[in-house]
């Protein structure tokens, strides 16, 4: 029989997870899901050359997204992305991203 190889989080971690026995009650809010799509390019590990977003100030995020959308801040691609979100969505993204910590 062919053997499977398992890369696991390790025994200690698994036992810790079992001991805590938390309820599966986590919930994903819209702001978190919307923001997750930013992380494709703007890695939260700050790799790559797109500006990092972790801890990005809320009001600056809102104003920059607006500036990309109205053309007052020049861009190669953020002009095309920023126009796809409502003002309310941009606020949700800004709120969520401002809570991220390194």
């Amino acid at each position, binding site marked *: 029989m062919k053997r499977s190889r398992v890369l696991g989080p390790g025994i200690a971690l698994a036992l810790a*997870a079992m001991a805590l026995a938390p309820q*599966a009650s*986590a919930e994903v809010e819209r702001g978190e899901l919307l923001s997750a799509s930013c992380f494709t390019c703007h890695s939260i590990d700050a790799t790559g050359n797109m500006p990092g977003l972790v801890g990005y100030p809320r009001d600056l995020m809102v104003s920059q997204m607006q500036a990309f959308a109205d053309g007052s801040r020049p861009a190669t691609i953020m002009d095309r992305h920023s126009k796809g979100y409502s003002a309310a969505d941009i606020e949700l993204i800004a709120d969520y991203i401002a809570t991220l910590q390194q």
Partner: protein
Amino acid sequence: MTNIKRRNFLKAVGVGGAATVAGFGCAANGSSTASRGAHVIVIGGGSGGATAAKYLKRFSPDLQVTLIEPSATYYTCYGSNWVLGGHATMDEIAQTYDALASRHGVTVVQDSVTEVDPAKRAVMTAGGSTMNYDYLIMSPGIDFRYDAVPGITAADAERIPHAWKAGDQTRILRSQLEAMPDGGVFVMVAPGNPFRCPPGPYERASMVAHYFQQAKPRSKIIILDNKENFSKQGLFMAGWEQHYGDMIEWLPSSRGGQVEEIDAANLTTISDSGLTTVKADVLNYIPPQQAGKIAMQTGLTGDGFWCPVNQQTFESTIHPGIYVIGDSSVAGAMPKSGHSANNQGKIAAAAIVNALAGKDPLSPSTANTCYSLITPDHAISVAAVYALKDDGTLGGVEGAGGVSPADAPASVRQMEAIYTKGWYTGITADIWG
């Protein structure tokens, strides 16, 4: 029965005993999922599957997440055209699963799923294990339809590579290009829609042209296309003329591009009922495609070639409890790309976490970006933002998205080339980092 299967599995995995029990115990012995976190299995550790596994744990750390993928190293298709162009190495497009396991707590099983039983919520693997799931995500990529054109079979791929899954196929095509004499002809047969990576064939032609220009400038590139137009066409063609003169010739289906047969022994394509034949020195046949084999086999494609899903959650409309993401899925206006698969992984992960919490699914709003290099310093892009439309499909948000401007100066093309590489680093960190 269940117990026997479970024992086989424990024997099969051999190592990581406690992690294994934590990972599979709940579903196998029937205890309630809430006590230890539900078990989600993800099939396929590519762009969609690896993202889904990671974000399941990010969104809900108590979940037990098992990722099943046969390869220890995944070679990204993105960047594989740069390898063909001679300015990236295979090592630079190699990704592994260490961080998913050690940083994010995903149980990564190196194995291949041979069967899914949607009624029993179980998957069987080539390694002989049976694992139960509460939810299943599948991102098995594509399979090739070699039966579409007579004269060529999957067995010919060693000599006539598709290089549409990266890895050995990329290496084969690169070495054929290196061995080709100056003045030779590289022929690519590009598939009709829909297929993986709509701009991919044209980025490939660009990268091969870049290599030829440096190493064998008298050579030619012919693209035989099974369609009438292609992604970012105006920008590609302007770039080709600017950098490569008439080295690249593109033939749409109405002008001989619709390949009807292949004489594999003579590396010759036949179209126009035999009126047009093209002899290649290096032939790159990219067959028409369909959903990954395990998705087809599980019946997730219905009567078609791709898997219909509820586009709000990516749950199959055929087998509830199974979510299909990435190239295998029908995702409205979203193209079959790594960027799409990555974002679909997040949508499906959020949908499962919210379903477990008893919440209504969110209405997703998501994005795609595809960068293509025409030279290492000249890139173009296409972007779109997608939202759920009234008819339940994901459509592009009007007024957003589009392609790079046609009249941009060289400095903008160069900036986009820098961002192309940044995109690669960013998305691979988001998926496997």
